[in-house]
């Protein structure tokens, strides 16, 4: 039983750890911090396994935990009032995809097109940034995105489509 849980967890960790790491890295823009948050995400998953908690969708679970931990990290980092966070949460930092800092850039090899795409995602309306990133970069389904963001599947689909149109528009200007 214990062995099965460990094997199952290892499989999920091998498959999803990079995605979670990226998701964290583009928000906190610090490799060490991203590693810490990734570890915390999988630690919580492991503890849920140990306590035999039922998890219907592992991907949704780990990205939801990651999203909440990032929000917590921003709260600590920015030292702003809770009311301020609640008011400006969505607009200001939850959907913010920071460009990687110089130190991290040196240690991580990110190509020009990738950096360009991140930059363009960052320019999207806040409500579209996460759905676009999760749909096209991490290949999550609208249902999973809905679960992570706490919205319905339909609302997630609408945000993805609007975001894609917006992204194309942004990129077209540069091509023209």
């Amino acid at each position: 039983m214990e062995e099965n849980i460990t094997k199952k967890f290892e499989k999920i960790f091998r498959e999803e750890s990079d995605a979670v790491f990226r998701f964290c890295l583009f928000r906190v823009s610090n490799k060490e911090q991203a590693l810490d948050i990734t570890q915390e995400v999988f630690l919580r998953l492991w503890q849920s396994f140990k306590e035999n908690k039922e998890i219907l969708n592992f991907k949704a679970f780990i990205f939801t935990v990651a999203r909440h931990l990032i929000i917590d990290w921003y709260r600590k980092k920015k030292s702003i009032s809770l009311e301020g966070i609640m008011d400006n949460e969505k607009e200001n930092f939850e959907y913010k995809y920071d460009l990687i800092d110089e130190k991290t850039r040196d240690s991580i090899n990110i190509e020009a097109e990738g950096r360009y795409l991140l930059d363009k995602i960052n320019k999207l309306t806040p409500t579209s940034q996460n759905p676009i990133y999760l749909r096209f970069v991490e290949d999550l389904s609208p249902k999973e995105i809905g679960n992570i963001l706490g919205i319905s599947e339909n609302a997630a689909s609408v945000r993805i489509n609007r975001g894609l149109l917006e992204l194309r528009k942004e990129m077209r200007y540069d091509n023209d």
Partner: protein
Amino acid sequence: MISTNNVNYMQNKKIDKKINIGVKEIKQIKMTTGEKNFMLLKILNSPTLSNTHIKNPWSFHSFIFNLQKNRLIHYGFVPCMMIIFGSGVVIASQKSLPGNIFYPLKVKVVEPTYSRMMLSKESEARYESSLAIGRMVEAETLANQDKLDNEKERQLNDLLINHTNTLSKTLNDIPKEEESSDNKVKDNIIIEFQNQMNTHAQVLDDIREKNNTKIHDIEKDENNTNISDTARNNANKIKDELRNENRESDSDREQDRENQQREKDD
């Protein structure tokens, strides 16, 4: 001529291709194998959260804090504690002797309360009798321990007189109906009281003699009263009262008979 739709389609295709390249490049960002293995090892060896709660070293203070905060607990807890402490004190006072801090509580609060709770005058009289006997037992216990000093003896003496007076009053208050249901109830209580008083007075004297206490010296002391003598006197007093009462009732009956005779003659 190329239509606008076609231009848009071509542009979108080009953009989508660019997006795909960007996505591929982003996906290249990964943790190193070393980082992954280290993280996995750390997670798998992490201490598992126990379901049992860690005992709070400040639990007592938290309890008091909750008590102050929560009105419902406050109103429930305080009466409960009062009942628990109150009953504890009452139980502790039951075995107390003169000189003990609980003794005043016993003779001034607990015993009068019990007495008032008696349902009939007969049971009240019996209870008063048992209290007077109890005082004698206390005196014997103290004498046996050689702790019966003048002050304690005076205290017991006063209490004994009070009990006897109350007993006498209670016996007089026994209603006629109750008396008629069992004519010998009063007699029994008085005889039992008299016997017990005389017996305990004798026992107390014996203990004193055994302890070589100078009874005569105590008797000589003007401020002091010998409790065994008080016991005997009280026993006689109660007996005399009963005798007087019987005489009065006999004379009443005789007078009634004379009156009836006169009425017949008339």
